[in-house]
C-alpha cells in the first residue's frame, strides 16, 4: 500500500475507511452495480409497461424484437412486462424473507449466546431442529394448503424457515464476545442485557451481520423461485419463478421459445451471484489481511 492512497485514519475514522476500501474494491462495486441496476429495473420498469403483465397484447410466440424486447409468450403476453414485474416480486420476497430470517436468527442467537444455561440449551435445540428440517419440502407442504398465495405471505413463510444458520453463527460469536473485558465493564456500570447486546456486542459483529443479511436475501430469492417453479407461486402476481413454470408448462422447450425461460433464470443468477461476489469483496474490505492492494 503506497502512502498516496492511504486514507488519513484519524480524520476519516473506521467507518470512512471501510467505505473508502469498499468503493475501491472491484468485487463490491461490480456486485452492487448489478444488484442496484436490476432493482431499479424492478422498481421503475413496471410503470413503463402495461399494468397487467398477463395481458394478451401481441402476436403469439414471437422472438425478441424492437417492439417486444424479450419477445412474447405462447399466448402473446409481453415477456419483458412479466420480467420487470417478476423482478419486483423477487426483490420483495428477498427483502421480506431475508429480513424476517435475520431478525429471528439474531434474536435467537444473541439470547442463546448471551444468556447461556438452560435458555441456551433450549434455543440451541430449536435451532438444530429447524436446521435439519428440509426447508423446501416443508415450505411446499405449507404453501400447498394456502389457497390464496401472495408475495408477502411467501416472504413470511420463507423467513420463518431460513434463520437457523444465522442463529448458530451469531450464538457462537456472542459466546466468545460476552466474556471480553469491555462487556464486563459495561455490565459493571449497570447496563442491562439488551443494551449491552445492542451497544457493545453488535457493533463488533457489524461486518459479519451485514454479510449475513446479503446471504439471507439471496437465499430467500432462490427459495421463492423454487416454490414458484413447483406451481406454488403467488396467485395474484407474476414472479420470475412462475415465468419459468409457465414456460415449462406450455412446452417452450420443444417450441424453441428460449426468450421465455432464459431471462428469468438469468436475472436470478445475476442477482444472487452478484450478492455472493459483493460478499467476497466485503470480506476483503473488513478483513485487511485479505486485501489485494
Amino acid at each position, binding site marked *: 500500500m503506497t502512502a498516496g492512497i492511504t486514507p488519513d485514519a484519524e480524520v476519516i475514522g473506521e467507518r470512512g475507511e471501510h467505505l473508502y476500501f469498499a468503493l475501491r474494491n472491484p468485487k463490491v462495486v461490480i456486485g452492487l452495480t448489478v444488484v442496484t441496476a436490476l432493482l431499479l429495473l424492478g422498481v421503475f420498469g413496471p410503470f413503463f409497461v402495461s399494468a397487467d403483465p398477463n395481458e394478451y397484447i401481441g402476436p403469439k410466440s414471437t422472438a425478441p424484437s424492437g417492439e417486444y424486447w424479450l419477445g412474447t409468450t405462447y399466448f402473446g403476453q409481453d415477456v419483458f412486462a412479466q420480467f420487470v414485474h417478476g423482478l419486483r416480486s423477487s426483490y420483495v420476497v428477498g427483502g421480506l424473507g431475508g429480513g424476517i430470517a435475520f431478525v429471528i436468527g439474531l434474536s435467537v442467537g444473541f439470547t442463546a449466546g448471551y444468556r447461556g444455561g438452560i435458555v441456551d440449551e433450549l434455543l440451541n435445540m430449536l435451532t438444530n431442529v429447524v436446521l435439519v428440517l428440509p426447508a423446501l*419440502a416443508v415450505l411446499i407442504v405449507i404453501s400447498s394448503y394456502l389457497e390464496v398465495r401472495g408475495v408477502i405471505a411467501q416472504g413470511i413463510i420463507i423467513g420463518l424457515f431460513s434463520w437457523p444458520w444465522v442463529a448458530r453463527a451469531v450464538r457462537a460469536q456472542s459466546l466468545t464476545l460476552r466474556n471480553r473485558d469491555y462487556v464486563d465493564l459495561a455490565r459493571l456500570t449497570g447496563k442491562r442485557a439488551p443494551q449491552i447486546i445492542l451497544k457493545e456486542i453488535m457493533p463488533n459483529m457489524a461486518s459479519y451481520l451485514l454479510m449475513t443479511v446479503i446471504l439471507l436475501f439471496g437465499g430467500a430469492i432462490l427459495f421463492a*423461485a423454487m416454490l414458484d417453479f*413447483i406451481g406454488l407461486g403467488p396467485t395474484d402476481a407474476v414472479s420470475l*419463478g412462475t415465468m419459468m413454470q409457465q414456460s415449462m408448462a406450455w412446452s417452450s422447450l420443444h417450441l424453441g421459445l428460449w426468450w421465455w425461460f432464459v431471462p428469468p433464470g438469468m436475472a436470478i443468477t445475476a442477482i444472487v451471484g452478484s450478492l*455472493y461476489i459483493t460478499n467476497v469483496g466485503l470480506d476483503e474490505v473488513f478483513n485487511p489481511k485479505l486485501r489485494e492492494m
Partner: protein
Amino acid sequence: MGRYFRRKLLLYGITFFIAVTINFAIPRLMPGDPVSRMLSRHSVANPESSQALRTYFENLFGFDVPLWQQYLNYWTALLQGDLGVSIYAFPASVSSVVMDALPYTLALLLPSIILSWFVGNGLGAMAARNKWLDNTLLPIGYLFTAVPYMWLAILLAWLGGIILGWFPVAAGYSLALTPTLSWTFVLNLIHHWFLPFLSLFVVALGGWAIGMRNLVIYELESDYSNYLRSLGAPQRLVRRYAFRNAMLPQISGLALQLGVVVGGALVTEVVFAYPGLGSLMLNAINSQDFFLLQGILLFIVIGVLVFNFLADVVYVLVDPRTRLGLEGGQS
C-alpha cells in the same frame, strides 16, 4: 463417543417428533377447508354423493374425534406404516406410491451428492495452491452456486435434449419399453438419468470447491502449518495436513447442505419429468392430494435424518477428538 451419539440421536428424535407434529398441524391450522377443496376437485354435482364423499374425507382426516385423539390416532397409524390412501393414485396407499418413486430420487441424489463432494473438494484444494486455477475456478464456482437448480436443469435439457438431441428430456425410461432387467432397459435408464444427474452435480460442485479452497488457505496460514514449515517439512506434507483438517467442516457441511440439495432434486425432477419424489409431489399438489404430499414430506424428513446420522458416523471415524470425548463435532 457415547455422549456424542446420544446427543445426536436425541436431536434427531426430537426433530422427527416435531416434523410429524408439523405435518399433523398444517392441515388443521391452515385457513380454508382442505376437505371442501378436495371435494371441489372431484366436482360431484349430486348433493347426496357429495355429502357421502365429505363424510368419507372427514373420516380419512379423522376430523370426527377431539383434537388430542386425532393426534394420537395419527401417531398410531404412522407407527404402523399407514400414511393413508393416495387420492391421486387411488386406491394405492401413500407408502406404496412413495416407495415406487423413491429409487429414482435416490439414484439422482446419492451419486450427485457424493461425486460433487469429492470432485469439488479436490478442485478446491487444487485451487488453493494454483493462482491460475483459483482465478478461473472461483468466479465459475460462485456462478454455479447462484444458479437456481431448475434453471440450470432447463438449460441442460434445452442444450443436450433439444439443440443437440443427445438426451431425452422427459420421463425415467422410454415409455415404449417395459421395465425388465435387460441391457436395453438399463442403458435406457442411464440415458434418461444422465441430464438430471449432471444438473444436480454441477450446481453443488461450486459450493464445495469454494468452501474447500477457503478452508485450505485458512489451514495453511495456521500455527501448526507455519511450525511444520519452519521445521523444514516438505510442502506436500504440510498441504496434506491442511487438507485433512479442512475435511472436517466439509463433512458437517455435507449434512447441513442436504436439505437444500433435496429441494434442488425435487425441482430438477419436475423439469425432466423424472418419476421421483419431486414429480410425485407436483402431481400431489395438482390433484390436491394432501395425504400423498404429507407422506412425501415425512419420507424426506426421515431420509434427511438418516443421512445426517451417517454423516455423524463418518465424522466420528474421521475426527479422533469425538471418539476420545474431547471437543469437536458440536451438536
